[in-house]
């Protein structure tokens, strides 16, 4: 960026104009970045109102999409400063500027503000316009609410409460359109419910970059449709179900699973790749029903990919590890946490220096990796994580499929190149130098330490969530928790430290890894440090250079940057 453009942007960022909204003066920036191109464009009335917490109802407008201006719900009245014959503003007796009210309303989403403009959102006329727009929208709406998945988070329902009439004046037959239209592998369309706002079209064209949707059959029977013969199947289709203000586009995965008002919403982070999209976990009675994206402009805006969104089913799987196990006479036997942790701590403590290897997944949280590091730091142990590289895309998907690779770097678990030391660990097991292997959340038999090699070990401690070839060979098996079952932080691919909250309880005896790691450290060193997660994070932030200056409280909902 040249200095000139930087200066210009600086200048435009501070330039504000004053507008009157419902009789009160507010300062708003003259321009704001366009949601797609990022260019500075004139601030619209709706942006000015929302910026100051003044509600203007809307359907087709979306803060992150280009404006279409077709639903007409955001109609407001406005006026401009009155000018005298000398082109100078006129003033009322009390010193306030005279406003010349426009005879016609405008849509707030597409009308830019001008200095001294007055916007009226609450006049009887404005309310009447909303009532009329809503009445038109409801004329052909099928009132499917009892069978519609959107019920409970439907804008049409919400505004019908605010601006709707109790009775319909419409006596004619409603227009019927196709229902249960299969748009693609993950999206089901109900054309009757569609209010033709075009949010989905704009999203998939301008954000996802796949111009797959459009309106056909213009007129009363206008329908949303995909390009003939080409299913709507890009990796971002489910975002259209989120932004659909009504129940026209619904997720096939969530379809008829649970009513949304039963879902407890927990702020969390997606773990499917290094991006770490902010999500909301919808759960009820310890079962996860859906992920939805949570807005974070520093990471994922309002979106997330379909793969990440649907990658939650393993959490509720039947074969989750539920028991603490210890191998006795060659066969795994059930034990309890206090016995297992005591013995594991003793075995680590009694191991000679250099005889311990650790493979800790980059799917563990920062705090857990930090505790793993503390557990073995005086034993000259070799530690590493497992790399998981895949393909990145143009929008959100990162090439690194581990959610916390940077955390593994920062805590010193993995060196610059993740997975480079696994071969060394395998070699040293072969040479008989490493006698104790600690594995957290990985199936090492698939990543360079063969199952036969595991037999050479004296002690194999494995913590995992689902059974695999490594857990089968464990001397001590410690059942862990998925991210939805615990609190913690991840450091994403760009070095942003983001926290996530606990949505559901872990199955059986499973415990969050940081809990039992803390206990192991406590047993081994008699100084386990902080025993609750926020304090543990703060302790880690003091100890780990990359996290200096961060605190659990200041991470807030959207995270903070680590200095990697």
């Amino acid at each position: 960026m040249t200095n000139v453009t930087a200066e210009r942007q600086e200048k435009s960022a501070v330039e504000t104009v004053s507008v009157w909204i419902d009789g009160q003066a507010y300062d708003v920036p003259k321009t704001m970045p366009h949601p797609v191109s990022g260019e500075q464009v004139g601030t619209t009335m709706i942006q000015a109102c929302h910026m100051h917490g003044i509600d203007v109802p809307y359907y087709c407008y979306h803060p992150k999409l280009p404006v279409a201006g077709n639903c007409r719900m955001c109609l407001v009245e406005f006026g401009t400063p009155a000018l005298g014959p000398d082109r100078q503003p006129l003033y009322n007796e009390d010193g306030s500027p005279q406003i010349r009210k426009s005879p016609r309303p405008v849509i707030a989403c597409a009308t830019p503000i001008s200095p001294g403009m007055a916007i009226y959102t609450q006049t009887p006329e404005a309310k009447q316009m909303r009532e009329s727009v809503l009445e038109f929208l409801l004329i052909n709406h099928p009132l499917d609410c009892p069978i519609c998945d959107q019920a409970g988070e439907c804008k049409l329902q919400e505004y019908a409460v605010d601006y709707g009439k109790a009775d319909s004046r419409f006596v004619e037959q409603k227009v019927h359109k196709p229902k249960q239209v299969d748009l693609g592998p993950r999206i089901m369309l109900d054309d009757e419910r569609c209010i033709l706002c075009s949010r989905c079209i704009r999203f998939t064209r301008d954000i996802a970059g796949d111009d797959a949707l459009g309106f056909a059959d213009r007129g009363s029977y206008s329908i949303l449709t995909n390009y003939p013969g080409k299913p709507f199947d890009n990796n971002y289709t489910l975002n259209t179900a989120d932004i659909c203000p009504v129940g026209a586009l619904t997720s096939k995965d969530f379809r008829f699973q649970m009513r949304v008002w039963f879902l407890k919403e927990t702020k969390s982070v997606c773990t499917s790749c290094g991006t770490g999209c902010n999500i909301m976990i919808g759960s009820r009675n310890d079962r996860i029903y859906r992920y939805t994206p949570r807005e974070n402009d520093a990471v994922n805006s309002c979106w997330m990919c379909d793969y990440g969104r649907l990658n939650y089913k393993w959490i509720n799987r039947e074969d989750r590890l539920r028991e603490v196990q210890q191998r006795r006479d060659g066969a795994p036997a059930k034990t309890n946490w206090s016995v297992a942790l005591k013995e594991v701590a003793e075995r680590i403590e009694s191991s000679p220096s250099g005889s311990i290897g650790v493979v800790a997944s980059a799917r563990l949280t920062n705090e857990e990796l930090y505790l793993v590091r503390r557990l073995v730091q005086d034993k000259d142990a070799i530690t590493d994580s497992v790399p998981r590289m895949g393909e990145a895309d143009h929008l959100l998907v990162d090439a690194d499929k581990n959610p916390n690779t940077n955390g593994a770097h920062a805590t010193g678990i993995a060196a610059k190149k993740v997975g480079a030391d696994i071969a060394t660990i395998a070699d040293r097991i072969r040479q008989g130098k490493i006698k104790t292997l600690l594995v957290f959340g990985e199936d090492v038999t698939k990543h360079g330490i063969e199952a036969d090699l595991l037999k050479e070990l004296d002690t194999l401690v494995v913590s995992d969530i689902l059974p695999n070839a490594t857990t089968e060979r464990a001397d001590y098996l410690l059942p862990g928790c998925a991210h939805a079952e615990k609190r913690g932080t991840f450091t994403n691919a760009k070095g942003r430290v983001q926290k996530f909250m606990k949505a559901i309880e872990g199955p059986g005896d499973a415990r969050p890894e940081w809990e039992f790691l803390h206990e192991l450290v406590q047993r081994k060193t008699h100084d386990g440090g902080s025993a609750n997660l926020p304090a543990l994070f703060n302790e880690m932030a003091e100890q780990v250079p990359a996290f200096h200056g961060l605190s659990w409280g200041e991470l807030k909902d959207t995270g903070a940057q680590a200095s990697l």
Partner: protein
Amino acid sequence: MKVQRKTLSLAEKLYLPAIFKGLKITLRHMFKKKATMQYPEEHWVVPEGYRGAPYLVRDQHGRTKCVSCQLCEFVCPPKAIKITPPGPQVNPNVGNVEKEPKEFEIDMLRCIFCGYCQEVCPEEAIFLMQDYSLTGESRKEMVYDKEKLLALGGVHNDPIEKWKRKEMEAREQGVG
């Protein structure tokens, strides 16, 4: 405070007048119509509008009226209702109604017969009927499942037939 005890008169001290007074009342009732009922041999005639146990109904064409909207589950004060929605598999038999509960359970031990479920139901699919004496040998037996609730609820004549009318309209317009 000291309570002044009333000194009893001779008649009161004798005790017998009070006995005879009581016997007189008993004797009078022996010749009156009986106020009690020989339950369970005899049964009470349940009045119209009585709020007994809630059951599910089918319409006159045998369709389960419940569409699994779960409003009754939401409104139920003692959380006696548990509905399992059908999930994404499209059932070709349900037509334009699309939804029908996979399972519907009412724990009759929890139910307080308040009638909120009937009041909130947008489909007129659940009614508080006349059963007031529910018995079972275990707690599990007192959780009525969908089949049992439908069998007990019987048929409710639906004069409007909202879904059927919608389907007819759509067919007239050449859709679906």
